[in-house]
């Protein structure tokens, strides 16, 4: 498991806009939608950027195309390069983003409209 020889073929940023505070439902599953070119990808690394500092309640669940959960309630803050200087490496095949979702618990979202960016490093 040597990360020094990893070469990323594709880096795709999935942008998600988190709506205003009063339209966020805590514990609601927010599924990824609208990325047909990201079906059945092999995720090799994952990071988040432009994360609102108050979004410390968000967790991510990734499922593959067989609906098997690979990451269960993964704290999104751990993927932030700002918070955690080392890029998180993954080896997850067959990811289906439409079966994957993130959840904000409690009231951790700031006011106004925030944008959450997931940076997927992947192969097909």
């Amino acid at each position, binding site marked *: 498991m040597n990360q020094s020889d990893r070469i990323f073929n594709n880096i795709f940023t999935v942008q998600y806009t988190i709506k205003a505070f009063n339209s966020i439902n805590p*514990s609601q599953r927010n599924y990824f939608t609208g990325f047909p070119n990201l079906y059945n990808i092999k995720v090799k690394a994952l990071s988040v950027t432009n994360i609102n500092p108050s979004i410390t309640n968000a967790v991510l669940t990734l499922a593959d195309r067989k609906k098997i959960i*690979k990451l269960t309630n993964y704290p999104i*803050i751990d993927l932030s390069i700002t918070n955690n200087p080392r890029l998180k490496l993954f080896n997850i095949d067959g990811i289906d983003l439409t079966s994957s979702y993130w959840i904000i618990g409690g009231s951790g979202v700031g006011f106004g409209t925030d944008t959450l960016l997931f940076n997927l490093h992947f192969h097909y």
Partner: protein
Amino acid sequence: MIQPIIENSYLVEINLGTIAAQKQINFNFIPQLEGSTIYSIQTFSASDLAISPNGSTVVSTAGLAAVTVTFTVGDNQDIYLYPTSDLRAASNAGFQRLFNNKRLNLTKSFVTIQTVAGINNNESVLFLFHYRTK
């Protein structure tokens, strides 16, 4: 320095309940981790994840320093009274602690409250297990 490549991960929560020094709280049975091989473990404080997925307040970074964890393999306490704060990557320049492919007996594993300083009743300690399936 090698960092683990994550294949599967599962976030497990232990609620401390009414806190008292030397109180031990066992992990619950987690079907997804039964028979799995665990190779890395992380913890998080309220600075990382303020509210757990179950809605509980997560211990503070100082609170992690009040708790140790013991992991059992079979009947052997392989990891004994490990300071939980050492598993928080954000406190360790982002490094995750690696373990030698342990098939943990979670229900015989437990956290121990060493001191009540820095923690409050009904706060939770979070463990993120990185694992390979059987």
